[in-house]
């Protein structure tokens, strides 16, 4: 093995070690302006790599207009769009603020954020609370129903969840994920087990800390109806796991994968804050009644952080039920997806195992060299948004991370290693 290769192997081993020893705990819910010290007034954080208004897709623009009205920065959606086009708002990626967000990923000052602390390294990551299913802001919805729900989350649900979490000292997430995998979740498109387990842990504390009976009933009903409630917790967890793995000199391990509906962005541990960007691909999947691929928006969201830590499409072998839901073929093919992703990862997670695959650990540590060498693109389970603003989710499917991102990343990595 050459000296360069040995240096990379050592750096990669340390990167994945840090990911595997993570100890993520859901500890609190606090307003974004408290959680994110660099988040300011009229700053809108979004999913994916950096992007300006004139290149944003329909759902992203719709969500921005909606969140501007929600924050009181505009009186109407039309005024909000005009302000956005005129440069009145500053747009930055969630990933620049230790934060992630699903689909459009809107994060602004007054929204309550889930706080996951990686106690092995003392770092915190954040994500907004999941709004529920159907017509929601993360899929570009922005009418009064959407905004009223966000206000309720801000004023009632968020504070109640925060009080409950502080009361019980937080919820350790690694064991919860392990149970969820054994119950058929993959933590991206299927979160029903983890959402149920989390509600079971939180319900007594919610009852103790929420004196208003009507509010308590609404909170329990809201969480109980939402099979995807845990997704945002899993995303914040993923960010808290990947953050200590960043910035390791000589490491070719992928530490960020994200999309904004226009571009897909990748970062490597060993290339610092450099973004490697290429056009997103179109998900392939199943559509809700009345919708088809003609209605679909290209790939979007920070939720690829879930695949980054070995879950989602990487853990498909644990969730055969999701294969049919996303139109990826017969349930018997579920393990094939995980085996394929194992070709581009350098390790397995011994604490997150898949019973039907003889307790194989989920593939962890995507090596950009393996992606480029094999041509095997990371596979991401994802929701599909309508391409027009204000509509919402129209389906679910599987999407591949563009190979071009990883080819660019390999060239960038080679430069940092002094290889040309």
């Amino acid at each position, binding site marked *: *093995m*050459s000296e*360069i*290769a*040995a240096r*990379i*192997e050592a750096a990669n081993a340390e990167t994945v070690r840090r990911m595997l020893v993570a100890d993520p705990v859901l500890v609190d819910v606090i307003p974004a302006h408290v959680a994110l010290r660099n988040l300011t007034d009229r700053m809108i954080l979004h999913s994916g790599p950096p992007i300006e208004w004139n290149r944003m897709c329909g759902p992203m623009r719709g969500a921005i207009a909606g969140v501007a009205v929600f924050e009181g920065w505009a009186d109407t959606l039309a005024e909000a769009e005009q302000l956005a086009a005129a440069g009145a708002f500053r747009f930055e990626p969630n990933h620049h603020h230790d934060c992630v967000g699903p689909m459009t990923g809107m994060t602004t000052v007054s929204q309550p954020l889930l706080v996951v602390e990686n106690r092995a390294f003392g770092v915190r990551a954040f994500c907004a609370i999941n709004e529920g299913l159907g017509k929601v802001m993360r899929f570009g919805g922005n009418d009064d129903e959407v905004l009223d729900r966000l206000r309720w989350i801000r004023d009632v649900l968020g504070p109640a969840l925060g009080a409950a979490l502080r009361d019980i000292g937080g919820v350790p997430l690694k064991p919860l994920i392990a149970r969820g995998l054994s119950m058929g979740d993959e933590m991206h498109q299927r979160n029903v087990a983890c959402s149920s387990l989390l509600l079971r842990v939180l319900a007594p504390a919610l009852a103790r800390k929420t004196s208003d009976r009507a509010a308590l009933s609404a909170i329990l009903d809201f969480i109980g109806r939402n099979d995807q409630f845990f997704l945002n917790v899993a995303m914040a967890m993923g960010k808290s796991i990947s953050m200590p793995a960043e910035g390791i000199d000589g490491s*070719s391990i992928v530490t960020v994968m994200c999309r904004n509906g226009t571009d897909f962005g990748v970062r490597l541990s060993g290339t610092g804050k450099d973004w490697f960007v290429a056009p997103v691909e179109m998900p392939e999947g199943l559509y809700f009644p009345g919708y088809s691929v003609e209605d679909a928006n290209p790939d979007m969201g920070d939720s690829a952080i879930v695949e980054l830590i070995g879950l989602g499409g990487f853990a498909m072998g644990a969730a055969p039920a999701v294969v049919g839901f996303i139109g990826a073929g017969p349930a018997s093919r579920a393990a094939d997806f995980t085996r394929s992703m194992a070709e581009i990862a350098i390790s397995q997670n011994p604490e997150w195992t898949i019973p039907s695959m003889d307790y194989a650990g989920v593939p962890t540590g995507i*090596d950009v*060299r*393996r992606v*480029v*060498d*094999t*041509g095997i693109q990371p596979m991401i389970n994802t929701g599909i948004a309508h391409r027009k603003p204000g509509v919402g989710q129209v389906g679910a499917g599987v999407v591949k991370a563009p*190979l071009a991102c990883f*080819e660019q990343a*390999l*060239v960038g*990595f*080679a430069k940092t*290693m002094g*290889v040309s």
Partner: protein
Amino acid sequence: MIDRKPKNLLKTPLKVVNVGLDGFSQDLARQNVPVVRVQWSPPAGGKPELARLLAKLGG
């Protein structure tokens, strides 16, 4: 001396490993010939510059 192995090979039931083009394995499967498909493609998708970088980076 003539090596008779190829003639014997063709007289015994075939077990095939197909590397690369999937059409070959599909044809064999249609004729009920056991075949294992190996997904293979040239390193770095056949792009020489990337393959060269990979070789230097131990990939």
